[in-house]
């Protein structure tokens, strides 16, 4: 009973938030949280199949640039550019996924790190396409949605952007959750635990791994597309290598064992620095300490807390 009520009530709560919140600043924070949740969750999908990708931030960049260019150079409306950006990123991911398939473990991590650098360097050098280091400016807002007399969403206020990302996030999470719980998801887990075993049982590990990579990058692309229209400017330097590390931090701190892990990780790690405002300079060190403590003492991540707590209570009951 409790399980069935709380998620949906919570979703309704999310839709009502803008009316409680005091101002655009808080809406901005919520939007950032949503972006990070999407990134961390889509990262997890790739990681579940045993591939730790440091290039996730750059994939978001690919989506962002694709969307911006489609809107500005080819005059596509945003609503078409959004899914197209996701698709382009997914196709690129497919090509890359197949090329990298023989690389396992630490090799995969390293090659994605180089890939990330390569993508950013290309974006900086290919001035005629991406504007290079001078970036893309004045990316327009999404085309307005109007129902005459009732609705006019023209994205002039943060509230409209909030609802957009909220809908995108919930949809993505539902899709990702469904896939995670399905046979495909279980196959991924098997592949992660033992590649060779899965192979010997006849599972097409290559296909599954590339699928995971494509799917994760698709959602990264979608997130990038939203980012481009929300922030309005794009520069290659914003999607640095460290950004990729942050995504891994969100997912790990939350815990990759459960679907909810990265969501909690992204939420906590986006909010805490904002609340502790005075320590702006100390933010990276805070992240570092949190990450190290979690990896050392709570490797399952924050999602592992309830279980640990239960274990502790059980132990106490035993000794009592």
């Amino acid at each position, binding site marked *: 009973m409790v399980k069935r009520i709380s998620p949906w009530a919570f979703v309704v709560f999310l839709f009502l938030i803008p009316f409680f919140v005091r101002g655009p600043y808080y809406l901005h924070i919520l939007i950032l949280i949503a972006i990070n949740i999407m990134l961390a969750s889509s990262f997890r999908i790739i990681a579940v199949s045993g591939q730790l990708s440091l290039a996730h931030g750059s994939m978001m960049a690919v989506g962002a640039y694709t969307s911006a260019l489609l809107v500005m150079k080819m005059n596509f409306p945003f609503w078409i550019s959004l899914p197209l950006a996701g698709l382009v990123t997914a196709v690129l991911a497919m090509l890359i996924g197949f*090329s*990298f398939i023989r690389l396992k473990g630490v090799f995969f991590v390293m090659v994605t790190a180089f890939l990330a650098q390569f993508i950013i*360097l290309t974006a900086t*050098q290919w001035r005629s396409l991406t504007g290079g280091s001078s970036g893309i400016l004045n990316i327009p807002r999404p085309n307005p949605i109007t129902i005459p007399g009732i609705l006019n969403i023209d994205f002039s206020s943060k509230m409209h952007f909030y609802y957009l990302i909220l809908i995108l996030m919930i949809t993505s999470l539902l899709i990702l959750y469904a896939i995670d719980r399905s046979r495909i998801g279980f196959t991924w887990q098997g592949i992660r635990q033992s590649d060779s075993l899965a192979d010997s049982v006849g599972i097409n590990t290559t296909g599954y791994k590339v699928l995971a990579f494509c799917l994760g990058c698709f959602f990264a692309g979608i997130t990038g597309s939203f980012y481009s229209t929300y922030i309005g400017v794009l520069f290659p330097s914003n999607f640095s290598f460290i950004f990729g590390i942050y995504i891994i931090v969100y997912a790990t701190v939350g815990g990759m064992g459960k679907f909810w892990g990265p969501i909690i990780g992204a939420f906590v790690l986006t909010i805490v620095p904002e609340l502790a405002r005075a320590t702006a*300079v100390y933010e990276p060190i805070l992240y570092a300490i949190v990450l190290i403590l979690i990896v050392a003492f709570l490797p399952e991540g924050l999602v592992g807390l309830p279980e640990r707590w239960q274990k502790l209570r059980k132990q106490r009951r035993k000794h009592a």
Partner: protein
Amino acid sequence: MESLLTQGIANGLVSAGIYILVALGLALVLSIMGIVQLAHGEIYMLGGYAAYCLCNVIGLNFFVSVLLSALLVGCLGVVIEKIFFRPYRGQFDRGMIMAMGLILLLQSAVQIITGGASVAFTSPLSGVVTVLNIKIPWERLVCVLIGIILVAAVFLLIAKTRIGQAMLAVSQDREVASLQGISVDNVYSTAMFLGCALAAVAGALVGSLYNLNPFMGGSALMEGIAIIILGGLGSIPGTIIGGLVIGLLEGIITPFASASVAGLVVFGTIILIMIFRPRGISGMIGKGSKVG
């Protein structure tokens, strides 16, 4: 044109010398201990800052500062290994993410302590030597010489001393080595000490050539990993060859095209090598030892 090429080669060799120091340290740690020490770049950065403090702030002689910083940072590395990596020895994922946490920790710690300032660290060496119409500043030449001496020293250490042989054994097969009575823990500590000391020297030398900032580790790490991949994991001669190749590529391409093109070529090459020949150069020759 010809002199541009030769000057480019000279520049490339000098860069190679420094990169090799970083890569060598990383190779030691990687092949002997099997951990992906992503924070190696920050060790390099710490070495630079330590030398700066000893030399510019306390006032010791430049070479003494470099040596001392290598020793200090080497010891720090041993401590780091005990705390942050040893407990997660078998668990690749955890160890790697721990290394990422270390990167953030060291970077931000240095930034907070130094106030984030990029600092000027001056080398006492000055003047330029001209060889065959190529100008090489003394300070760079000395860096290369130091690099060569250290690489030779590491070679000798591994080939001739007992601890070196022990390290080789552990890198090939940890369990068998421990069965033979080799203290794996001691070997790990030594390898970590050596690897971090080498990185510290590299950081100090680079700091004296250009400048120091808390974020200089990232690019050093990338170059180091690129060299190791090119040269083949676990192979020291491979690392040296890899370093020379990458240094020369950058040195030659940059004057004729641009630095960014050089970067693209290097990264593109590494990606291709990883896809098609993950064992690198030494793998192609058939000399590489245990991979990954």
